């Protein structure tokens, strides 16, 4: 649990309509358990898991949100800090799929522009109740250029995989960011204000805690 043991903390936000299985996937992933009944998420909640990403210990801090529309003003405050977003729909619920465009718009407005997104269609075990075909999800994901998986919390299908994909992408994104920032830093001090600020921070942290991941 001690933060020093982990190379970094990746913040992941889980979004999607109410009852698509957001809490469920978080519990499945973090506690390796599945219950039929959970408590409806009120506002926002979080869970953590330490994973080994190709040998590097990483802490996944997963933020679980309430799906109901009226909670959105309260939850958008948590979009900005997220490095990854797991967007979910329920394959047995057409409405939850239709709302994805709304969610993507919401993410675009509130989250950081380089946030990593992954799309998940949950409850793929419920074959008889399926309303949304796999290729529809696939198509949408391709349109937005984000990875897509159909998952099942009940039967533990693709759960670890999807979070691992998310973590890998976050890592890539961060090392890329680090690189570009360093380039800017090296290439001179004429960057814009934000970059300037960022690089100063970088300097500050790297001086203070040279052993810690500075990305």
């Amino acid at each position: 649990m001690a933060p020093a043991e982990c190379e970094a903390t990746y913040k992941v936000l889980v979004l999607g309509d109410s009852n698509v299985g957001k809490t469920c996937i978080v519990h499945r992933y973090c506690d390796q358990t599945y219950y039929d009944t959970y408590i409806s998420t009120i506002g926002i909640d979080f869970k953590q898991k330490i994973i080994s990403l190709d040998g590097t210990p990483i802490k996944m801090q997963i933020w679980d949100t309430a799906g109901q529309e009226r909670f959105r003003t309260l939850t958008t405050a948590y979009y900005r800090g997220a490095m990854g977003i797991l967007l979910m729909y329920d394959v047995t619920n057409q409405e939850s799929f239709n709302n994805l465009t709304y969610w993507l718009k919401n993410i675009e407005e509130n989250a950081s522009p380089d946030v990593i997104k992954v799309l998940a269609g949950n409850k793929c075990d419920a074959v008889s109740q399926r309303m949304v075909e796999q290729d529809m999800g696939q198509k949408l994901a391709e349109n937005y250029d984000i990875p897509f998986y159909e998952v099942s919390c009940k039967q533990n299908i693709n759960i670890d995989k999807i979070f691992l994909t998310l973590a890998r992408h976050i890592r890539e994104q961060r090392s890329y960011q680090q690189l570009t920032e360093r380039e800017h830093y090296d290439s001179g001090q004429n960057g814009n204000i934000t970059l300037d600020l960022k690089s100063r921070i970088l300097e500050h942290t790297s001086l203070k805690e040279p052993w810690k991941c500075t990305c």
Partner: protein
Amino acid sequence: MFYVFLMNIENGSVLIPDLEQYEVPPWKRHYMVQKRRCKINAVPQRPLLPPIKIVLVQPREKECPKKTERRQSLKKIEISPDFSTLLARNRDRPLVSSLPPPPLPELPVVDEDAILRDALSSESSLNSCTSSASSVISEVAAPSLNDDEQNSLTEIPLSGGINPRDYRQITRDPKKEEKQRDEKERLFRLFDQLLSEIYTAEEMSRVSRRRSDNLLYTGRSGNKVERYHSHCGFLERYRVEEEPLRYSVELLQKKSVPEIERIVNRLNLHLKEAGDNLVSGLEERDKLVIENQGLCDLITASLQAISAKRSEDTEMRFSVSPGGGDTGFSEWAKAMKMVARLPDGVPAHFRKTLWLSLADKHLSSKNISWPQVERSIFSDRLNPDDQELSVQIVKDLHRTGCSLFCGTSGQHNQAVLKRVLLAYARWNKNVGYCQGLNMLAALILQVMQGFQGETVKVMIYLIEGVLPESYFADNLRGLSVDMAVFRDLLSLKLPELSRHLDNLQQESKDSGTSYEPPLMDVFTMQWFLTIFCNCLPQQTVLRLWDLLFLEGDSVLIKAALVIWQSLAERMLSVRSADEFYSIMAVLTREMMEFGLMEANNLIKILSPTEPLQLGSFLASKRREWKALKIISSRSRSKGE
């Protein structure tokens, strides 16, 4: 199969102690009764019950001429709990141990002459009986018995149902007779015990109801006897009227004058009896009212004695339900506030009354006529919005965190919860349904013992009368205002902790790793929205709710303050936002499972005599933040 009755010899009414499973047959017409006396030595000299006889009757089943058929047609008797324990005891021990064994009655011989003899001997020995109670057992011959039947005491095998006139036709079999005798002997003992238990029970109820001692009842016999009716309601309930209390005109026209006179006499007696009962009932009620008042005064005095003895404490007045008018209500509410702060708080069985009284007061202060409202919000006719509301409500019915609403056994409760949530949404269209209301409604429903109308009343009071405006509506503005107000309060009351948490939040921003909203918001949001119902153990939650209902929304903020105060020390050692969340994840789980502290301590810390003018502080801060939030939401919508 046979039936057991207790018959009041004085008036011929039939008393059946707690035997609802028994079918009461029109026994007078259909059953032949053989009489037999049982002495009850153990009964006190003067019985409080009128003399009782035990009547054992058996259906005469003409339509089943063959024994085997008859037996098959008999249903197994479900013996009531009292009886089965009695039987079980009897099976192990032949006689009552605590009481001197009653002398065994003469064994009956299945023979009409013997029956007559028995009857005679019972008459003659009646005078020598120490008790004036005489129990008479009657039974009909048992033509066949076999071993396995004997073993089963729940179905005492006195099968047969043959009219005594047929006795002579029964072939005699000595072995069978012996078995019969054993069986009967056992039965007599059983009834001896039954009688003595009835008397003992009567004696006990008399002792426990001392105030009824002087109430007299004029029975049909004209003698004044102890008013046993009020004592042994369980017997009285089963009194069977022999004759109807209503007669049709045609029926009366057919009757002769003496018959009608008899009916008139009988009805007069009934009337007198009813009148007497009414008078004594009213007298008893008056006494109880006075006694109740005395007890309430006593409690008021005790509460005042332990109160802080401020001037307003003298205004409290304890009563079970609020007195009339606004003064009566405020006197009652003040007393209840004291009760809620007593070491054990409001007793669990009283909580429903308390919450409902407060909710009713809220509704009446808003001039809401509840029956009409209730009809419309619970109506089966669908409203235009119902479809959309139901979709969201149904998603959350099983997600209340309360096991009563889970699985197949919770289906009924889920249906009730759905009606409640829909009814509230219809009542307050602005709020409609908000996630989190499912948990609140589930808890209230539990306290209201499943009554949906009452649950909605309390929900209305909670959301509209207690909590600040827009806790669940308008993008939860009221809630986000309170979260901000709480941060202000924390910086005032726990400056060190507040500063530390702010620094952690700022650091993570500065370090560029991530942006953090105020750290404690996650928790405050959950606590306020669910009113702690999924954050603390239920007993603590209920006590907090009692206070919340009685003292208003500041309880919520004070409770949150107490929680952070108790966590402050551990929080101050935390070095990063990351670590803060890690530790809080563990602590919140602990809080839910074990409680933060003993409920009493928590209630005690939430002291009503807050030196800080919390009320006015909250009000002014809320106004400030509300204005800010409105401005920011307007600018946001303009931006869009």
